[in-house]
């Protein structure tokens, strides 16, 4: 082993983490509050739907996924005071009224023959938008100052990817006819338009903007 007294760089050569990040403490807290709100709405409806779906495999998966999103909401709940929000309920809010409209429409189906609609809303619309917003946050926040948020984002994203795959495979296994393809697509389009109006789970800017400033203002 080399001389233990010999000076070493504080950051190892392979550690490329940087200080700058796109979010202030306040902006990170605002987003985390939005995340907690949407995770709560998601675990509540998944729990509620369990009794309404006749398909046994779907029933059991919804019960499992219900806990995943409850746990995510708990992670965000615990993160808020660390971001100087001592009353976590104050920032546990929807990004805007349009997102409330999206959630209302997503949670509306109840009848036992609407499993496709229930799953499409969650696994083809909401969860892909959550993955997008969480990934944007992960890739844009300071890898040093906001490391606790990054750690929670990574835990949540791992669940989101696995749950998305579970849900998508359930949808594919339920769709048997052209008419059911159309049903799924129509419901997805309806909800996607509501999500578009909301601008994503954290409102406009959930995944930043892909356009240059000049084009964005054109």
């Amino acid at each position, binding site marked *: 082993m080399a001389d233990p007294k010999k000076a070493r760089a504080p950051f190892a050569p392979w550690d490329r983490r940087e200080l700058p990040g796109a979010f202030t403490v306040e902006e990170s807290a605002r987003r985390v509050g939005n995340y907690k709100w949407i995770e*709560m709405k998601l675990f509540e409806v*998944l729990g509620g*739907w369990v*009794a309404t779906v006749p*398909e046994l495999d779907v*029933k059991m998966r919804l019960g*499992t996924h*219900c806990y995943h999103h409850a746990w995510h*909401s708990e992670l965000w709940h615990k993160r808020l005071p660390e971001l100087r929000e001592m009353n976590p309920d104050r920032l546990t809010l929807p990004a805007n009224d349009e997102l409330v409209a999206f959630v209302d429409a997503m949670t509306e189906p*109840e009848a036992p023959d609407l499993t496709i609609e229930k799953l499409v809303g969650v696994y083809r619309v909401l969860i892909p938008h959550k993955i997008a917003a969480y990934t944007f946050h992960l890739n844009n926040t300071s890898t040093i100052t906001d490391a606790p948020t990054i750690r929670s984002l990574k835990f949540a994203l791992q669940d989101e990817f696995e749950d998305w795959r579970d849900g998508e495979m359930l949808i594919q296994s339920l769709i048997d006819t052209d008419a059911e393809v159309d049903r799924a697509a129509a419901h997805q389009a309806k909800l996607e338009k509501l999500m578009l109006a909301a601008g994503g789970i954290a409102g406009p800017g959930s995944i930043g903007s892909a356009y240059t400033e000049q084009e964005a203002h054109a």
Partner: protein
Amino acid sequence: MRKIFPADLLARDERFVRLTTEQRFMDPRSPGSRSNPRGAMKLTPDRPDAPDAARALMHGIFVGEVQALEGAGRTCWDFETGDGGDETPFALKLDMARQCWDEARHCEISVKLSDWMGTELGEFSESTFLYEAACNPDPVLRLTGVNRALEGLAIDVFNTMKEFGDIAGDPVLEFCEDWMLADEVTHVKMGSDWLRRLTEKDPERRERALEFQRIVDKLFSLGGFRGEDDDSPIRLARRFRELAGFDKEEMDDLAEISREAKADADRMREQLVAEANA
């Protein structure tokens, strides 16, 4: 989706056969049935009908787990989040979501065990009286009915099945029941802790909740099906209930409730036999 989902609308596929609670208790094949002239019998491997009785009990556990999953899920949905009387605290909802996951695993375990024991889903009937305890519109009463009475029954059932697996030389059954038993102790402890926290400043509400629990416990004693007598098919699991927050007085009360339920059933049975012989 509506709040408070009625038991008769619980969604099932075509394999499931649903009976009313009355039909179930009047069916002479049901253990502890009021019209069963043999009365309740302890589940032991030397009983001639032990394999069928064990399979029936396993199927009952399976549908019970499905309803427990549905009940915990509805508690996540039915109430607004908050600290008001008709609301549910965020942390309680998190516990219910965790319970959803646990019950979903129990469903999976029960399906695998039923297959292991040679049972097909839907081979035995389902009644929804377990879920009905999870429909109370007061979150504290619902919690007490589900997490202390229903999940308490689950402790007794899993402990009995675990012992049956041990005596019958079925290590798979014993192994699985022991794991599920650990989860149920956690769920009952959740119920005990939340009951104490939510009614700390409201002794009247606490008493209403405990009274509701006594009613559900009597229903779950199933005419003497669960008790402390040597021939009780399901034995009161005092050691595990103590871990879950039950005190001695509560367990003594429960034993008394079970004795009363058995005495009621015995009287009904004698009456039926007398009528048949007249």
